[in-house]
C-alpha cells in the first residue's frame, strides 16, 4: 500500500523532471548510445580478420553487458551516492518522516528508477543492435524474469551498501569503486567464468551482477529462451537474490537505527 503511494509520487516527480529537462534526458540517451558505439567499433576493429563473423554477437554481448553494468551502477548508486547526497541536503530527513519508513521509500524509489533505466536502456540497446546488425532475441518471459531477479539482487546489495554509507559516510568512495567493479564484471561476464581461478570465481558469483549478466546474455544474445532456467547460472542468481536481499534488509535496518543514534541521518 505504502509502496504504491510512494511509487506514484516518485513516478510523477521523475517524469516531471525528465520532461522539464527534456534536453538533458535526450542528450543523455544519445551520449549513451555514442559511448556504446565507440566501444563496439573498438571490439570489431581489434579482432582481426576472423572476428568479422563473430563481431555481431560479441559486440552486442559486450554492449548488453555494459547496459546491465550501467543499470547496476545506477541502482547501487541510488543507495550509496544518492543516499549520501540526500543526507547532505536534508532531503533524506524529509523522506524519513513520510509515514511509510525508509525501506519502503527506497524500494519505491529504486523501482521507479529501475523502470526508467530499463526503458532508456532498451532503446539504447535496440539502437546498438540495429547499428551493428547483431540479432537480439526478444523473449519476453525469460527476459522479464531475469530482469526482475537482477533488480531484486541489486536492491539487496544496494540496501547493504546504503546502510553502510548511512553510518560510515567515508565509505562513499569505496562504494564508487564497487559500482565500477560491477560494471566491469557485467561486461566480461560469460560462461568462461567457470575457467577462472577459484577465488576469482567465488568473488564473481558473490557479487550480484555476474550471474544475472550471463543469464541475460544467454537469453537476449544467444537466444536460448526458456533453456536458461535450467542452467546453473540461473540457480546461482536465485540463491544470491535470497542471500543479498535478506542480508541487505537486515543490515539496512540495523544501520538505520544506528544512524539515528549517531544523528547522521541529517546533515553530514
Amino acid at each position, binding site marked *: 500500500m505504502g509502496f504504491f*503511494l*510512494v511509487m*506514484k*509520487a516518485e513516478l*510523477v*516527480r521523475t517524469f*516531471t*523532471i525528465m520532461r*522539464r*529537462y527534456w534536453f538533458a534526458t535526450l542528450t543523455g540517451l544519445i551520449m549513451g548510445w555514442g559511448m556504446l558505439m565507440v566501444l563496439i567499433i573498438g571490439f570489431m576493429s581489434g579482432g582481426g580478420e576472423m572476428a568479422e563473423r563473430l563481431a555481431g554477437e560479441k559486440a552486442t554481448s559486450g554492449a548488453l553487458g555494459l547496459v546491465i553494468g550501467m543499470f547496476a551502477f545506477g541502482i547501487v548508486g541510488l543507495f550509496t551516492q544518492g543516499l549520501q547526497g540526500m543526507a547532505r*541536503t*536534508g*532531503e533524506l*530527513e*524529509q*523522506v*524519513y*518522516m*513520510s*509515514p*511509510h*519508513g525508509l525501506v519502503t*521509500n527506497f524500494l519505491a524509489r529504486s523501482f521507479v528508477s529501475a523502470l526508467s533505466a530499463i526503458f532508456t536502456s532498451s532503446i539504447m540497446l535496440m539502437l546498438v543492435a540495429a547499428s551493428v546488425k547483431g540479432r537480439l532475441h526478444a523473449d519476453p518471459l525469460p527476459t522479464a524474469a531475469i530482469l526482475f531477479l537482477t533488480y531484486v539482487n541489486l536492491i539487496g546489495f544496494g540496501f547493504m551498501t546504503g546502510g553502510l554509507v548511512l553510518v560510515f559516510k567515508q565509505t562513499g568512495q569505496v562504494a564508487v569503486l564497487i559500482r565500477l567493479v560491477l560494471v566491469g564484471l557485467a561486461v566480461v561476464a560469460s560462461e568462461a567464468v567457470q575457467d577462472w581461478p577459484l577465488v576469482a570465481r567465488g568473488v564473481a558469483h558473490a557479487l550480484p551482477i555476474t550471474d544475472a549478466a550471463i543469464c541475460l546474455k544467454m537469453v537476449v544474445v544467444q537466444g536460448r529462451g526458456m533453456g536458461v532456467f535450467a542452467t546453473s547460472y540461473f540457480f546461482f542468481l536465485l540463491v544470491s537474490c535470497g542471500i543479498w536481499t535478506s542480508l541487505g534488509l537486515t543490515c539496512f535496518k540495523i544501520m538505520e*537505527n544506528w544512524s*539515528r*543514534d*549517531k*544523528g547522521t*541521518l*541529517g*546533515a553530514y
Partner: protein
Amino acid sequence: MSNSNAIELHDVDKTFYTRHIFQKHEDTGRRRLYEKRAVHAVDRVNFTIERGEVFGLLGPNGAGKTTTVKMISGLVRPDAGKVFVDGLEVERKRLKVLRKIGVVLEGTRTCIWPLTPLENLSYFGNLRDVKGPILKQRARELLDFIGLKDKMNVQVRRLSRGQKQKLAVCIALITDPPVILLDEPTTGLDVQSSRAIRDKVIELTHERGKCALVTTHDMAVAQSLCDRIGIINHGALVACKPTDELLDVFSEQTFEFRVDRLPALDGLAAVPGVVGAEPCPEDDGPAFLLHLVQDEATRSAAMYDAMDWLRGAGCLLRSITRRQQTLENVFLRLTSEPRPARPDGE
C-alpha cells in the same frame, strides 16, 4: 501517557560522540592518535505541551534545540528517557507518530529544487497520503496565505531563501497535522512573512486546538507568539514558564539604583540576598543594577540591608526603579551563566 498533553518529554537525554584522528587537543595542546569526544547535546530535559498551546524553545547556537525537535520527530534516538506524541511513544510507534506531526527543519533543501512549489506540495502530500482533491485545495490555500501564490509555478531553485522557507512551512502543514514542530521558522524571513507565519500558528493552535513547538532566536517572535517558553542552554532546560510569568520573575529581581557616586560594588554584592551588582552608566548620573534573590521575604530583607549599606558608605540615594525586563535580557542572563544548576521545577 496521559491524554491531555500532545507532547511529553520525560528525562530525555542525548550525547553525541565525535571521533578525531590525530588532532590537537585544545586544552593540553597534545596530539592524540585517536580520540572520542562527547557532546552532551540534550541533558535530561522534561517538558510537556498541551493542545492549543504554542511552546517556544529558546537557546543560543548549539544549545540542543534542533536535537530536541529531531528526537520528537524520531530522526534522532534518545539515549535515555521517553518522548510521547499524542499519547504514543515515539520509539515504539514511530510511523504512527509521523502521521500526527508536521516538521520544519533548518535548511533550505527540505524541498525539491527542480520542482515548483505546487509540485512540491503535491509530491509531499502524495508521500504522506493526502487524497487528490483535498490536496489540491489545501495546497492552493496554503500558498495563498503565505504569499507564494504568484510563485507557485516557478521552480524552487529560482526562489529566494525566505520563499523556500515559506514553502517548507507549507509542506509541514500539508497534512493538516495536530502537532506542529517548527525549527527556526522565521530566520531569513521579512517582517510580513514572519508575521504571516506567526498568525497562522496562532490560528492553528488557539482556534483549532493544535499544538506547536517553535524554536527561535527572534525574541520578538517568541514574546508575541509563545504561550510558554523554555530556555535551553548546554542541553539543559534552565527555565520553563508561561511567557509573562517568566518576564515577571526576572523583572522583580533586578532594581536600578541611582546615586550621586558609584560605591565599591563588591561590598554590596556581599550583602545576604544580593545575587549580583553591576554598574550601569546612565546619562543623568551614576547608577547600578542590583540583582536580588527570588524569595520575597529574603529579598525584602536584602533591600533594607542594601540601603543601610549605602547609607553607611555615604552615598546619596536618588531613586530606585524596578527594571522592566524584556525577554532578551532574561535570555541573555540565563544563558550567560556557565553551567546552570538544575532548573527549579514547575
